[in-house]
Every structure is written in C-alpha cells, then in structure tokens.
C-alpha cells in the first residue's frame, strides 16, 4: 500500500525532530483547530506537560472566535478575533499544521494522513472538526452570489460581493440567520429579507408571541421577514437574481446567505468506521469516547445522547471532560443547558431553561408591551416555588440572573412577576440579587467559573474586571456573564465592608464626590494646585474637565481663565462640529423671544454665513462659525441683549415651556413665566452632566416635562415636581417628588435637589443614572430633599444661592477682555487667517460644512 511505506519514513523523521524527552510522551493528535480544538489544547497544557500535542487545522489561520465572527464587519480584524497567536502553540510545544486537513485515519496502525502528505502515529486522537453550514439541495444553489456564514473567508467573500448588491436575503430565521441579516444591514445592503420555512422566527428558542414582537422590532431595523416560505429555486444567469418560492411567489435579490442549520463534520469519522448518527454527528459516550476508545470527539461534531450542541459552552465542557480523562480525573458530560441570548445589536432576545413548557404542566406569567416592543414570559412550577424557564424579547437585561435562578433552583420570591416587571413599590428587590446565588452557581459557563471562585478571588484582591479575568478566566470567552461578574465584584466588596470607589483616572485616586469635598475644604482654586495636592503625574483629558467642573461648581469663576483644562467645547464656549467649525446658541429662556431679537439672530446669521435651525430645546442654533468669528458674533448678540446658552457646557441647557394659562384654554398656571424664572435662576451653573427642565401648564404635558432632569406640571392647587427624567438613548420618565406645591417650595426643592446632585454624582452621569445607582432610590432621595434626613438642606440652599449670585455671562467676559479674545484664532502666527480646511457647500437656501 502506497502510504504504509511512506508512514514509516515519516514517523521516524518526525520522531527525530522531537526533543529527547518527547520520545516517551504519548502523542495526542487534535483534528480541527476551531474554538473547541483550541480550548482542548489550552486546558490540557494547563494541566499536564506529559503529552506531545500535534494539531491539524483545515483553515489557513489558527483558531479564532467564531462566536464573535460578525464583529469582523464592524471593524474587528482577523487578529482581533484570534484566540491565541501562532507563537502560543510554539511556546507550549504544540506542533501546529494549518491549511492541512486530515484525510484518513488508520485505526489499526493508529496513524493519520494529511492532505499535504504527512503521516503520523498517535496514541490518542481528538476529533474537533466542528460543523459546516447545511446547504439545502435547491436548483441554482451553485450560482454566484450565494454564500454561507461560517468562516472568516466566507465573510471576506460576502463583504466583497455586498459592495455591489442592493438587496439581499438570508435563508433561515434562526439565531445565526438573524445575525447574518444584521450583518447585511451593517454592510449597507438597503433591503434585507429573511426567509423562514417555519411559521415563526427562531423556532427553537422562542414562541409565536415572542416571534411577533421580534418581527416588529426587526422591521424597525430594516429587515423584512417572510414566514412559511420555502424556496423552490434560485433563478438568474450565472449569478443569483431572484428566489422562487413553492407558493409561486418570488423575490428579486442580488445575494443570498444560507443559514439553514448546521451539519456536523463527520465525513472523516465515517470513513474510519466510527459510528455516526443517521442525521450526522460522531456518536460519543459521556467520556466523549467514540466506539474506538482511543478516539474522542468534542464540540459541534460530537453527537451525545442523540443531540448536537451547536453552542460553544457545551463544547468547552466536552474539552474539559477529555482533558480530565487523560489526566486520570473523574468528569463526565451529561448534556448541557441550551439557554441563549442573541447578540443582535438593537434587539435583545433570550431564552432559557424549559422555555416551551405550557400549562397545565406549569404556571406561565406573560408580560407584553406592544408599544415598546417588549415580550417576556416565565414558566413557574405549579407550586410557585421554582422558575423553570422563559423567553425575553425586546429587553433581556434580566437574562443572566433568571438563568441562574433556573439553574440553581433558587426559591422564588412571593411575587415572581417582579422578576420580569421589576419591583414597583420603590423598595429594593428581594431575593433575586446576585449575592443570593449559591456558592456553586456557575456564573461563567464558557470557562466553568463558579460564584465561589469569583468571590474568593475578589476577596484575595482581584477587585477589577481585568484582574479577575486574569486569575479566574471568567468573562474571557463570550463575555455574556460580564454584568453578573461586575455585580459580584461590587457585592463581594460591599459584603466585606469595603468601600467601592469610582476613581477618576490614573492621576486621582478619588471619586468625584471625594475630590469635590477636598477641593472645597482646602479652598483650591486652580487645576495645578489640585493636582499638586491630591493627584500625581501631569493630568489628562479625563481628570482635567472633571476638576474644571468641580472648580466652577464651587467657585463659579470665569471658566475660560483656565481654558486648557476645559473640554474643547467649554474652552471655546461653543460646540466643535464636523470640519472644525463651531455652533452658536444664544439663551432663549423658556423659548420666549421677541420679534426684534429674532431679527438680530437673522442679521447675525446672514452676516457671518451661518446655517440656522430651531433646536429640539426651543431655541435657535447657528452652525458653521469660524473660530475667529466667534467673539465678533457674540459681541453683536450681547449688544442685542442675548446671553450665552451654555449649549457647550455640562450645565443647564433649556427649561422648555408650553404656552400655559396666558393663551391656552386648558392652562392652569402661567408656565412660561415660571419656566423663565427657573431658567434664569440656574443658568450658567456647572454640573456633572447637562441639565434640562420643563414646565407644563396642565396634565396634557405639552412641554414634555416628565422627560427632563426636572419637570414641573401645573395642578389645580399648585405644581407637581418630577425629577430625574432623561431623553436620549436610554429614555426614562421622571419620578414624582412632591405634589401641589407653590412656586417658592418648588424652587427650594429644586435648589436642594440640584445641589445634592452636583455634589455627589460621578462625572458625566445624568440625574436619571445617578438616581438609578443610588442606594434606596427615590424614597431615599425624597427623604433627603423633603425631610432633611441628612441635615444638609440649609447648606445646600446656601451653596445654590451663592452660585446664583455669582452668575456671569461667560461670553460677555470674553468679548470685553482683549486677552481672552486673542485665544480665538486658528493660527497663532497668522491670527487673521481662517482655517483654509473649512469649506462649505450650498444646501437648500443655506450652507453646510463640506468634509
């Protein structure tokens, strides 16, 4: 036989190149250098050096993170995705043969033979050949423009082809199919379709109600879903042009990604006479052994108890089982939890435990909000004690803790609906917190790290995520457990009585609140002094603006006197925009403006060639100003009675008003006058983040006050005051602080609230986030503001009054001060010349920056 004789030559040759000590080591050959094959090597070298490991991989590169494959389209490179560099294998004395698939196994002689002609002897063989995309046998499937989604090479092909495609389809609406659809959108495909054979999306993970919610969410992302569709043929000359379906309809597409399931790579095993399942997969026992005791199969190619596990965590567990076996330990594989969370950016989807079980075998609680696109279902044991499983669509923050609750059979709290609704009584959540998990709870399933391991590492000093990753490996694989791990760090530190500190940066070992107090007590007035007293090094772009904000919240001096510690926008008292121009926003308190002032804005805009737009905050923004022009522009505005609008600062922006009782037939009080009074009171005050307010004349709420940091709504008897609302990317309604109060009380509460926030919030934390993180939440804050539980209200009011009394328009200060004015030049050696890079082009009847 041809390769028998060759074999002897090769085994001798290879044996000769081994180090002496290797000669006696048993040889393990790993077939497949995918995620699980790599993990096997990593686990084995960590446990033992008494084996010689040889790896064969079919792909041209060493193992990479397939789970995060889609990030290749979001700017991650192949190197970023790599699990370990090629040098890692050499360092651990592992021989790595890439681009060289194994073609034959000779079980009698215990040898393998590769495509490039290498023949080697093995003592143990580990098959980690993974799976390939299942490609259905549809006429036309071989046409150009039809792809699968499995390897980096596949993605490179898709990317190149997508450049010329306008519309694309994904065949298969499962976990991977939806991920592929999102990838097509990210690649700029205008029209993306998902074709699913079943009557719902993700049929293995979610029920039809969940699928309904998911569908409408996906529609918003720009994906069109076709259910109950089976493809009959792929039409087109050479390349795909349309899909024909069995119901006689068709869809024109330029490209197709097939994601119709996976097929275990068992062809090599079959050839070698290993037992395989009828629908594919290498049959293994609980030790991952095939019917040949020297050959193991792990990962997506292994069929255990009639099941292929298409996820990475069970594959890692299988690798651990084989490593334990080889190093004479005891561990078996008994199936694995298939709970999953979809990583599709934009829509949260998760399912866990027994998600499809229905009544009467369990009790089901369903929460559905079609407006927000949220669907949640939990299945509870009939005695109400245990969580069995569930489905989350649209909002899956609770996934990890719910999964833990199922896996660890944690007894449910009396109102299990709180698990998906959040507790609504304002009181702290009981029972479901991370610290109540049992010690053996598996927190990171990829790396099999328990709660106990994490907590003891934290107690031994690994108090940061990075340190913890290093010593426990938790959160290093899929990263899904990161939120739980973070909570565990915080919880453990707190339980140990340690103070959890958010230090500002490498230069200041203090939280913002601590530094605020230190600067105040020591009466420090500039950044260098603060750094000399309490910091180290030369500062940076993180601590400089934090200290700048503290200094102005305390002393309210003209901020441009210390211009180089300000964020760029604060330094030039204007927002820097695309191309390096600036915007100008004069204050228009409450949104009320006279015709004369409107005319001045128009004249100034015309004179300096500025683009004008009404903002979402009821005022006017003038864009496209050259830095050199800023002082002149402001001089004209100030002459006409305008002041800075602080649109550039972490400060009060606008107090939005509705027209109120002066004109509106429903108005209960004069909301405009009150909004102006409040805006004038707090204008210019620097805070940890920007502040916005609103005043509405009645419950119709036309000023959207409940979306603001503070919102005031007229009642028959006075005002209702709401605080800590937020618009932006994570909208949150403001919460009621006090009802039916008069103007004076309202301002008193606002003084206390704002000053307390200014003193205690972390940098760049809006009031809503500040409240969310506050121990005791709204009831605590209410107690501080209304009942003076900390005994600081008098002081808060005084401090606020001091800030109000020292108000100055910072643009006026600049306009009137030649030295400060001089700073507004682009070229230091040609102060009158404007930045030649700045260019405009016409748009409608105005201009826009070209860049």
């Amino acid at each position: 036989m041809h390769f028998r004789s060759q074999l002897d030559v090769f085994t001798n040759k290879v044996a000769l190149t081994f180090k002496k000590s290797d000669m006696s080591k048993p040889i393990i050959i790993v077939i497949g250098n995918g995620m699980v094959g790599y993990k096997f090597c990593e686990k084995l070298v960590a446990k033992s050096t008494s084996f010689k490991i040889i790896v064969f991989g079919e792909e041209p590169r060493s193992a990479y993170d397939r789970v995060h494959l889609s990030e290749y389209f979001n700017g991650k490179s192949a190197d970023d995705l790599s699990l370990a560099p090629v040098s890692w294998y050499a360092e651990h004395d592992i021989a790595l043969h890439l681009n060289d698939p194994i073609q034959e196994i000779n079980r009698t002689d215990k040898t393998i033979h590769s495509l490039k002609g290498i023949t080697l002897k093995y003592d143990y063989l580990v098959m980690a050949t993974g799976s390939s995309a299942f490609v259905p046998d549809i006429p036309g499937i071989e046409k150009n423009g039809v792809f699968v989604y499995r390897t980096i090479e596949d993605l490179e092909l898709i990317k190149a082809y997508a450049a010329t495609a306008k519309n694309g389809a994904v065949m298969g609406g499962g976990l991977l199919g939806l991920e592929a659809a999102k990838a097509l959108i990210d690649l700029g495909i205008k029209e993306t379709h998902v074709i699913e054979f079943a009557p719902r999306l993700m049929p293995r993970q979610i029920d039809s109600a969940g699928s309904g919610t998911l569908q409408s969410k996906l529609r918003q992302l720009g994906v069109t879903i076709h259910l109950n569709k089976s493809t009959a043929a792929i039409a087109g000359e050479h390349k795909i042009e349309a899909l024909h379906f069995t119901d006689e309809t068709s869809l024109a597409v330029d490209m197709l990604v097939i994601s119709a399931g996976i097929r275990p790579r068992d062809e090599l095993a079959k050839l070698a006479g290993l037992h395989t399942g009828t629908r594919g997969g290498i049959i293994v026992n609980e030790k991952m052994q095939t019917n040949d005791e020297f050959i193991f199969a792990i990962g997506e190619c292994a069929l255990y108890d009639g099941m292929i596990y298409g996820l990475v965590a069970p594959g890692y567990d299988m690798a651990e089982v084989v490593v334990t076996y080889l190093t004479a330990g005891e561990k078996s594989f008994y199936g694995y939890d298939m709970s999953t969370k979809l990583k599709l950016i934009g829509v949260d989807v998760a399912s866990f435990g027994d998600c499809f079980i229905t009544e009467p075998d369990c009790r089901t609680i369903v929460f559905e909000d079609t407006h927000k696109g949220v669907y949640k279902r939990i299945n509870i044991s009939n005695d109400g004690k245990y969580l069995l499983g569930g489905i989350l669509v649209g909002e899956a923050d609770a996934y990890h803790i719910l999964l833990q609750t199922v896996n660890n059979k944690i007894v449910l709290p009396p109102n299990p609906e709180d698990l998906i609704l959040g507790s609504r009584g304002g009181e702290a959540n009981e029972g479901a917190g991370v610290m109540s998990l049992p010690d053996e709870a598996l927190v990171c399933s990829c790396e099999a790290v328990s709660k106990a391991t994490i907590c003891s590492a934290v107690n031994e000093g690994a108090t940061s995520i990075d340190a913890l990753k290093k010593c426990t490996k938790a959160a290093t694989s899929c990263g899904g457990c990161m939120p739980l791990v973070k909570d565990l760090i915080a919880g453990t530190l707190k339980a140990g009585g340690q103070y959890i500190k958010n230090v500002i940066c490498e230069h200041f070992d203090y939280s913002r609140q601590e530094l605020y107090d230190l600067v105040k007590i020591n009466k420090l007035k500039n950044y260098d002094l603060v750094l000399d007293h309490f910091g180290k090094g030369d500062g940076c772009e993180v601590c400089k603006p934090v200290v700048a904000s503290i200094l102005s919240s305390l002393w309210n001096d003209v901020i441009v006197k210390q211009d180089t510690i300000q964020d760029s926008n604060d330094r030039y008292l204007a927002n820097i925009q695309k191309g390096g121009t600036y915007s100008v926003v004069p204050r228009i308190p409450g949104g009320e403006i006279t015709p004369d002032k409107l005319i001045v804005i128009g004249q100034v805009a015309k004179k300096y060639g500025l683009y004008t737009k009404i903002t979402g905050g009821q005022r006017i923004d003038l864009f496209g100003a050259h830095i050199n022009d800023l002082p002149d522009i402001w001089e004209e505005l100030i002459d006409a009675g305008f002041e800075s609008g602080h649109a550039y600062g972490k400060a009060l922006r606008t107090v939005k008003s509705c027209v109120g009782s002066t004109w509106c037939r429903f108005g209960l009080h004069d909301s405009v006058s009150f909004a102006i009074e409040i805006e004038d009171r707090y204008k210019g005050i620097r805070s940890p983040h920007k502040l916005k307010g609103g005043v509405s004349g009645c419950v119709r709420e036309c000023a959207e006050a409940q979306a603001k940091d503070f919102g005031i709504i007229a009642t028959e008897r006075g005002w209702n005051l709401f605080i800590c609302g937020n618009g932006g990317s994570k909208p949150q309604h403001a919460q009621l602080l006090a009802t039916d109060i008069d103007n004076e009380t309202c301002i008193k509460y606002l003084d206390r609230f704002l000053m307390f926030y200014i003193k205690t919030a972390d940098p760049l934390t809006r009031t809503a986030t500040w409240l969310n993180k506050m121990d005791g939440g709204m009831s605590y804050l209410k107690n501080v503001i209304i009942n003076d539980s900390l005994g600081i209200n008098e002081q808060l009011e005084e401090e606020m009054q001091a800030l109000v009394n020292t108000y100055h328009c910072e643009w006026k200060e600049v306009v009137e001060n030649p030295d400060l004015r001089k700073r507004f030049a682009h070229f230091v050696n040609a102060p009158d010349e404007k930045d030649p890079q700045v260019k405009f082009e016409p748009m409608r009847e105005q201009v826009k920056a070209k860049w």
Partner: protein
Amino acid sequence: METITNIEWVLACYTDDVPANGGACMKHGNEQIAIFNFSRRNEWYATQNLCPHKQQMALSRGMIGSTGDDCTPKIACPFHKKTFSLINGECLSGEEYQLKTYPVKVENGKVYIGIV
C-alpha cells in the same frame, strides 16, 4: 548626522502666545503644525495638527497630559479623545495611527519649529 544638519528652524510665535499647558496652531506654507507648551514640565512639543482618526484639523485645541509610570506626555484630540504620544506621535488608544512630530527650540522668548 544628516538629519540634524538639514533642520530648518522656523519661527512660530512668542512663548506667551501659546497658553500654559495648552496648544496653538501654526501655519507653515500649506502645513498646519500644533505646538504645545507643556509648562508644568517646562517642555515644548510639536506635531501635525491633523488628527488621523477622522481627519480633523484640531489637535492643537486638545488637552495635554501624561500617562503611565514613566509619565509619557500625550495629547488628546478634542473630537473623539484619541490620545497620542507627544514624544514619538504613536497612538496610545490602541490604534494604528501615527502623528508626525517636530523638534521645538525656544530662544529669547521665541518658539522655533524644526522642519526637516
């Protein structure tokens, strides 16, 4: 060494034209050069004014500072706060950008930039 002999020293500005611990931008032909007065350390640096991240002419308007145990002086771009070493122009935010740097000389209250 030829690199030194070939340097042409160009007068940029007076020392007090550049704010303490801050930057200013100089025009040299069609080039824009950012000059930094690191007065806390009594050092001067110069780099290209163009931020390589999104091609914004803005580095001179950024914040300076230092990082690491050896206090590497750095500049943070005002646009997206990518940071760069003032010593060799290397991007410190883990990306493959590189700034051009220039030697600076201060004599009699005047700041000169070395053009190679």
